[in-house]
């Protein structure tokens, strides 16, 4: 149901620029106003959110340790430096592995129950599908996004050309099919499929989990349609996009409606980003179980709101309360007076 809502919603979103541009001729509105506004919302929303996280305190160092810590004898017990970092540099490597290789997801296992001849068994097997889908999706999306830089840069940097060359290496069709386009679609479809088919994942999914996937799928499909089927006027589009970055806005007449649909969907994605779970992208950098070294027994860490007024129940009070039986039991007392029974005092 949640998936259906999302699909329907994205479908409606496609209709907006379709009618807006074709019927109402709002070319400047959809070509300039919407994307610029969306980009501003994205930028401000994104930065605001990250700053807002950053303003919250980190009272304790709580890394999740994923291996042997730095031992008293590191030769005898080898430290697992990147799953249980002790220093800033090691923590940096842990973060790099987490961000670029999805290290934790790579560890994934699947638990299952079995009835065997030897009795009941809970089995765990390595399960890297989610990792594979996620890598496929994120890297394709990243490269596709990077490729779009060619629309905003003049001259086009050589690394972009190199990347495009590699991406189009198979040389299928005209214009040449990009591998990342295929991988992006595959990644989204696999992630979406997993969410629909796995009953556990399906159960925890909201409309807000399907919507970004469907939206990104629509963005990718509209882009592919533009490039391979509608064969839009790329020169004119570059004219528009260069106008955006040089604040010299104009919308050439030769740009087809498919471009406006693509841009509108991207705009929705940008505007939606800061208010959604897509913020996991910057969030991982601020995750206290990953970005802190496991060094709190060796180095002092300050809790900004540590309350010095919270003190131990004082030993003196303890001795006052239990002094008599303590004395009887022969336990040493700091204040011998505490050991006297009340009637002795009188």
């Amino acid at each position, binding site marked *: 149901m949640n998936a259906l809502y999302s699909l329907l919603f994205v479908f409606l979103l496609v209709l907006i620029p379709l009618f807006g541009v074709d019927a109402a001729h709002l070319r400047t509105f959809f070509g300039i106003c919407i994307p610029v506004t969306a980009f501003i919302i994205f930028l401000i929303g994104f930065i605001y959110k990250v700053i807002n996280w950053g303003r919250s305190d980190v009272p304790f160092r709580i890394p999740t340790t994923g291996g042997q810590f730095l031992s008293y004898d590191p030769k005898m017990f080898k430290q697992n430096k990147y799953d249980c970092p002790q220093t800033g540099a090691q923590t940096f490597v842990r973060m790099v592995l987490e961000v670029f290789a999805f290290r934790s997801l790579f560890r994934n*296992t699947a638990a299952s129950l079995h009835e065997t001849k030897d009795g009941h068994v*809970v089995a765990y097997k390595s399960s890297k599908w989610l990792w594979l889908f996620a890598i496929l999706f994120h890297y394709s999306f990243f490269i596709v996004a990077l490729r779009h830089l060619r629309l905003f840069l003049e001259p086009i940097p050589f690394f972009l050309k190199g990347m495009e060359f590699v991406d189009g290496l198979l040389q299928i069709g005209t214009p040449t099919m990009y591998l990342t386009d295929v991988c992006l679609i595959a990644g989204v479809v696999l992630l979406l499929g997993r969410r629909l088919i796995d009953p556990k994942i399906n159960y925890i999914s909201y409309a807000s989990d399907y919507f970004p996937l469907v939206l990104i799928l629509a963005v990718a499909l509209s882009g592919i349609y533009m490039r391979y089927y509608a064969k839009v006027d790329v020169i004119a589009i570059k004219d528009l996009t260069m106008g955006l970055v040089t604040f010299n806005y104009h919308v050439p007449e030769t740009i087809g409606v498919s471009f406006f649909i693509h841009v509108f969907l991207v705009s929705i994605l940008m505007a939606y980003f800061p*208010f959604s779970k897509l*913020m996991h992208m910057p969030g991982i950098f601020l995750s206290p179980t990953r970005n802190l070294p496991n060094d709190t027994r060796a180095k002092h860490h300050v809790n900004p709101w540590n309350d010095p007024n919270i003190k131990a129940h004082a030993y003196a009070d303890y001795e006052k309360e239990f002094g008599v039986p303590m004395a009887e039991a022969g336990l040493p007392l700091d204040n011998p007076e505490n050991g006297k029974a009340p009637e002795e005092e009188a």
Partner: protein
Amino acid sequence: MSDIPKADELFTSIDYAPPITGWMETPVDFSPGNWCYPAKPEKMEYMDSKLPGLWGKAREWSPGDLDWKLPANWKETVVNGFRERLDKFRSLKVFMDICVRCGACADKCHFFIGSGDPKNMPVLRAELMRSVYRGEFTLAGKIMSKLTGSRVMEEDVLKEWFIYFYQCTQCRRCSLFCPYGIDTAEMTMMARELMHLVGLNTNWIMEPVANCNITGNHLGIQPHAFKDIVDFMVDDIEEITGRRVKAPLNEHGHDILFITPSGDVFADPGIYTFMGYLMLFDYLDLDYTLSTYASEGGNFGSFTNNEVMKKLNAKMYHEANRLGCKWILGGECGHMWRVVHQYMDTMNGDTQGPQMTTPTSPITGTVFDTSAATKMLHITEFTSDLIKHNKLKLDPSRNDHLRVTFHDSCNPARGMGLLEEPRHVIRSVCNNFFEMPESTIREQTFCCAGGAGLNTEEILEIRLRGGLPRGNALKYVQDKHDVNTMACICAIDRATLIPLADYWAPGVIITGVHEMVANALVFEEGEKRTLDMRLEPLPGFEDEEDDWTPPNKEDA
């Protein structure tokens, strides 16, 4: 006990298919057995007198009743407390925002594996809180509540929190597998803090907390009784070894203060581990003292709120300063070591006296720089270093009747990284050591299902279900390697693993690592032992009157 299903029946009753109704619409089962008993009002009155304003109103109430007698302004209190904690804990704020519900954590939780209840998937446990976060604090959640899985704080929501945040043992296994490191333990801690504000609490946690403040330990053992117990242990040790060991209590002027969980003073099999400590220290003629005032290593405050965690923990340095100790040696315990390793110095480091120094073994001279800030050393680090320097005469054959596996406690594994030291000690004191399957040990270890204050009888079935992953892994090595002993370095484990093993892998006993050290420790050349630490005949070393010699020594 009687209405607990048999192990086989329980196993086959587990169904991972989610209910037809969405999780927000699925009602919560409040029948007895699903919740821990609330705290006695007098305990909460006492706590309120010591740390005012954190506990709501003390009262008699029951989660089985419809009316939980919440204060009139409970909603405001919880929502404001939530908002306040979002600013105090970045972990909470970030974890509220960044979950993508990928489901990697879903089958990592022992409570989910053993129950199939989707609200025991870490992602949904956290969603119980996140849904409120979105509904109360975010724009998207306020305007599109259904689509974003948002809701506002209602009494039913709070009640659901009470059930499910007391079905989390803060073991952090989910956080290991989460691609963003989202830690359900953090959220459980926060949810429990919030529930305390409106007087929702459990006696199994709050009575130990109150006890610990008064008597110095969770069990409420008063100083003279503590001394009696230690004297009994000294007597038992004399019966086993013929040696009368020293057990200094509350003495000034020793270098080392030794603190271990009080559970080990109180019940089998923890006491044998405690006796092991006493023997080891006597063997070394260690300059140390025990304390009746700081007689608790564990910290049930960490299952309660950060304030009481700090208050209980503060005793350790307070006592070290009073007695003039240079550093603290800590016994085998799980959550105690999470608190000591990740919280103690931050909370109370500034109360360390000038006499305190980096822990240094007086026997080997090893300086333990990795604990330079806390000045507190784990006993397996200490013992492992002794063994490495060949300072202990050990006869591992005294443990030959034990076929041993090792249960990594969650906190030393995932909140510290102490994995090899205990294994080194175990391998040095016994000849038959077998690891459980890889996915159930070290950083991937499974909880005993009784951590974080859940080790109570009234939720035994929940605990046994949660104990399935550990129990099944134990059964595996029992079948494969004839394992008959599971060692652990945690006092809560020593209590909870017994019913767990009896249920899932009957015939396996539970031991502390230092109980095995004590068995193997040779006090003096030619020392004969006929009894193990449990005062049971040592197989192969029985007291026999005849001059029988072991076959392998016949030529000598």
